């Protein structure tokens, strides 16, 4: 029997505010344990929450960027559970009136476009961090009370690959909108997946499991693929799927059962009596809508329309805001757009990918990349030398001109000097010459290679090509002569 995978994602994103959701503590990442705490976020009796307006504004901005409707009259609800990371023994969240509802994200997988519905987007506070030691559990409340939005997709995803594409797109939209720095490795974007399988053609959903602890885009994809295969295997052997929470084991690439899933009723949601409901004025929504900058889909469209990039290239270059901003700054610094796009896609992204770095981690500037492209365009260096210069440039941050000068990499443009090398090569390779004259065009490539080798890659390849052809045709004339 053929099965179909059904996935819905719950994504938590930390909002880029300076202070927490209900108190004036800072939200900085990496502070000393409990340095950013106060009686409010530590739940001392008698304290009351005071809502951060910026957090609400960013949540609205995120919701609008994802095409959500805004719930005009909204409120906070208490979600109860007992765990030491939650000092109040409840989390301030939103139950039946989430700030945003009915949005969507467009994804494209293997050339096929698909719209993934977003059911809801709500505001809530983050919990603290636990450190388990033999001498007890240690608690750091720096993250406790930091504003989060939770974005819940409809079960519209059909594979790990689609889930990854959705997450990449969601991350891009939120980064462009400026609501969060969305860094999975620092925990400012976290993702849980609800996974089930069903026979192809079946319209009812199978029993789902919830997968936690996925720390990267690729682990989300792998965990979902593994979990779907596990469920199919269980069903194929006549078993049933248990509704439970499972943890992804990154090292072993498997999911492991954690606990039976609590039902929603266990959380005993009720409206928070410390906060009054609030109305979001239409004018505020309009103001926020007007402040939303260009989002990834628009930017991608602009690259295709304005710069003639292919849809694929435009997609790759807009997937990460930092990369896209770098690309635009390079173009602004001067140079052929398509050449720059090509360098971004092949060399820059290739390097970042290989070294697991982000564009912010490297010292290279857009002005340097633009300069490198111009050095190739004006014939100062060959494309091959440019790759050597690029390696050094992206690692050291030095400007390409100084690298070229310091290493003596200037391209040889001197015709008389190259003519000398060409005639030497022609003399040294009679077989290739004979092959060429016998009509084997490929022999020319071999001879060009020899000249490049003699000049340590510094010869202008086009010039070498021309000179070689001239020399060879002269030979032909000799042979044909009287």
């Amino acid at each position, binding site marked *: 029997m053929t099965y179909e995978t059904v996935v819905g994602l719950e994504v938590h994103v930390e909002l880029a*505010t*300076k*202070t927490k959701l209900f108190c*004036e*503590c*800072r939200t900085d990442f990496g502070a*000393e*344990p*409990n*340095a*950013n*705490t*106060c*009686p409010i976020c*530590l739940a*001392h009796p008698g304290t009351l929450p*005071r*809502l*951060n*307006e*910026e*957090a*609400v504004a960013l949540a609205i901005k995120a919701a609008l960027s994802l095409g959500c409707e805004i719930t005009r*009259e909204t*409120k906070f609800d208490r979600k*109860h559970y*007992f*765990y*030491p990371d939650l000092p109040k023994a409840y989390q301030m969240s939103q139950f039946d*009136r989430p700030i945003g509802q009915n949005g969507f994200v467009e994804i494209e997988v293997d050339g096929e476009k698909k719209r993934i519905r977003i059911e809801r987007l709500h505001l809530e506070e983050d919990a603290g961090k*636990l*450190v*388990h030691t033999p*001498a*007890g*559990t*240690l*608690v*750091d*409340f720096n993250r406790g009370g930091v504003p989060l939005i939770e974005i819940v997709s409809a079960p519209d995803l059909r594979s790990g690959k689609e889930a990854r594409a959705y997450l990449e797109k969601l991350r891009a939209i939120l980064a462009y909108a400026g609501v969060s720095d969305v860094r999975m490795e620092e925990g400012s974007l976290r993702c849980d997946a609800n996974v089930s399988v069903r026979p192809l053609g079946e319209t009812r959903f199978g029993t789902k499991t919830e997968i936690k602890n996925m720390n990267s885009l690729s682990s989300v994809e792998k965990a979902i693929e593994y979990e779907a295969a596990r469920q199919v295997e269980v069903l194929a052997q006549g078993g049933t799927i248990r509704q439970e929470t499972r*943890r992804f084991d990154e090292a072993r690439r498997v999911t492991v059962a*954690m*606990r039976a899933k609590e039902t929603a009723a*266990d959380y*005993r949601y009720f*409206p928070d009596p410390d*906060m*009054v*409901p*609030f109305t979001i004025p239409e004018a505020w929504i309009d103001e926020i809508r007007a402040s939303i900058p260009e989002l990834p889909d628009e930017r991608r469209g602009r690259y295709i329309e304005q710069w003639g990039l292919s849809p694929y290239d435009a997609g790759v270059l807009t997937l990460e805001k930092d990369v896209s901003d770098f690309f635009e700054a390079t173009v602004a610094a001067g140079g052929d757009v398509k050449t720059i796009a090509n360098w971004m896609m092949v060399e820059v992204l290739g390097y970042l990918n290989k070294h697991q770095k982000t564009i912010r981690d490297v010292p290279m500037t857009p002005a340097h990349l633009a300069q490198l492209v111009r050095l190739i365009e004006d014939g100062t260096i060959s494309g091959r030398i440019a790759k050597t210069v690029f390696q050094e440039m992206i690692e050291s941050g030095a400007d390409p001109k100084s690298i070229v000068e310091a290493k003596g990499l200037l391209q040889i443009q001197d015709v008389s000097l190259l003519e000398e090398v060409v005639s030497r090569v022609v003399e040294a390779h009679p077989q290739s010459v004979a092959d060429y004259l016998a009509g084997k065009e490929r022999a020319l490539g071999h001879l060009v290679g020899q000249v490049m080798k003699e000049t340590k890659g510094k010869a202008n390849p086009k010039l070498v090509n021309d000179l070689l052809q001239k020399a060879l045709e002269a030979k032909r004339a000799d042979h044909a002569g009287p």
Partner: protein
Amino acid sequence: MIAVTEDMVREIAQAAAITLTPEETAHMLRDMQEIVQFVERLKAVDTEGVQPTIHPVALVLAMRDDVPAQGHPREALLALAPDAEGGYFRVPSVLGE
């Protein structure tokens, strides 16, 4: 109408991490039955065409600006806890998740 039972009281107490004596359970049962009866009486009111209320008092929520305040001395906050170590609060071990 929902019939409140002793089992239901015990389940709710458990969810709230409260231990009840048999006397307290009986007392809670009586209270909760009365609350449900009261809600039943409210249900009789005709609310046709009335907008649902999400809060009984018409207050405007005051929000605050996103400006950090001078931090609270961490040592003083930690000192109020039963146990702390190295800047962390310490609680009894939470066994594997």
